[in-house]
Each structure stands twice: as C-alpha cells, then as structure tokens.
C-alpha cells in the first residue's frame, strides 16, 4: 500500500507545553513509521530548544478553553505551575519523556532540529543558548529547501 507521506516538516511557533508535545509526538511518530521528520522552531517555539527556558515551559490556564477553568481562577498565582505539575505527572505515568529527554530521543531518531534565523535575532539569542543537538539556524528560504522530495508535508503548530 502506498503511503503519501515521505517527509514531515513541523513548524513550532509556540512554547506552551501542549503545542511542544504535539510537535514532538508527531515528529517521533513519523520516524517510527519510517517517515523523515524535521522541526523548525520559530518565535516562542524557540524556548523549547533553549537550554534554560525549556525547563520552564507551562500549560496555559488563562485563555485556554480546554482547561474548563474560569479565567479569573486560572489567573491566580501558582495556578499555571500547578496545572503543569499535574500534567507532567500524568505524562510520566504514560512514559512520555520530559522535554529535554524527548529532544535527545528525537535527535537520536534522526529528526533534524532547526532554529528560525529571524526569530533568533529578534529575541537576541545565540547558538550556544540552544541545545547541542540543534542542527543549525535557517532562514525561511533555507527551510523551504528542506522540501527536497515528493510527498513532503508542512504542519504549522
């Protein structure tokens, strides 16, 4: 049976944990099926590969209807940290790796990790701020050149 997915390119533009995990799980899932996968981190998504900031990623409790929590309650101090802790605990139970370990798994699995040049400049980051597994810093044009075969798909998260 033909599979019309040979390569999946993910653009991660957000730093909320739900978005970060969506990108990671989809990229890992592609590799597990023998499909190539790459992630392009841009804007706030860069925090997921930033050595320090990756430790502080959160689940949003405000402006997130999925939490089913009144906005004022979600805005209380400590609420986001609490929600994040609960979710991390649940994920550990399901054997979902934390962000730093997940990135190691992705890199070892052959997922190429790229940072967006413009966003890196905008936030004033340097190469050494990011994990060693980062493949490089690309312009948008360079990233489009990663579409080097048929049946490549781009997913924006």
């Amino acid at each position, binding site marked *: 049976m033909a599979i019309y997915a040979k390569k999946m390119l993910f653009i991660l533009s957000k730093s909320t944990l739900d978005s970060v995990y969506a990108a990671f799980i989809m990229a890992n899932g592609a590799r*597990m*099926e023998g499909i190539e996968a790459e992630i392009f981190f841009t804007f706030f998504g860069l925090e997921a590969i930033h050595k320090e900031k990756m430790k502080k990623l959160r689940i949003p409790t405000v402006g997130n209807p999925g939490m089913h929590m009144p906005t004022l309650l979600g805005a209380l101090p400590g609420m986001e940290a609490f929600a994040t802790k609960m979710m991390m605990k649940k994920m550990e139970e399901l054997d*979902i*790796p934390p962000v730093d370990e997940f990135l*190691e*798994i992705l890199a*070892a*699995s052959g997922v190429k990790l790229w940072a967006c040049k413009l966003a890196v400049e905008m936030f004033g980051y340097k190469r050494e701020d990011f994990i060693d597994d980062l493949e490089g810093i690309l312009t948008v044009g360079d990233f489009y050149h990663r579409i080097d075969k048929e049946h490549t798909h781009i997913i924006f998260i």
Partner: protein
Amino acid sequence: MEKQYGNYTVHTDPEGYLTDFNEWNEDVARAIAAEHGIELTDKHWEVIRYLQDKYRKGEPLSIRGIKKSGVVDIKEFYSLFPGGPLKISTKIAGIPKPKSCL
C-alpha cells in the same frame, strides 16, 4: 491469514504480525527479516530477545523503553531496523505491533 516461511506455516494478521507467538522460531524470524531486507546479526537477536521478554512480562514497548533498555541505543536501533524500527523489530520477534503513539 496463513503464511509459509520455509518449512513452517504460520498465522498472521493482515499486516504480517504473527497471531500466535508459539508459531515463532528463529527460522521464521530470519525469513520475516529477509522480507524487510534485514540479515539478523547477534545485535539483532539481542534486541529481539529483549522485546520478547517485555512481551512475556506484559510490559508495553516504547522508544523511551528502548532508550532505557541498556540493550541498544536509539540511533543503533534505527540502523538495525530501518524504515520503522519498533514495528519491524516486533514483527520479526513474532509479537504484536505496539499500540502506543510513542
């Protein structure tokens, strides 16, 4: 479905996974591996035995589990079973395809 591997007749699901682990043997494993262009080395066997051990214990398989296994690292796992390591290795090991998304 019935499938013939050399002298052995085995029962599989539509994707080729053995439906009865008791029908598995090393010759069948070699034949399934050959279908995927893989010639089994000592390292392959080590991984296969690890997977079967997990299966017997009823423990779920995941890529993170492979990482922690101490048997093989992820890079090597991908190079041993190219084109979808966990789904191909489990097929060769005669155990069900992992249901997890990880």
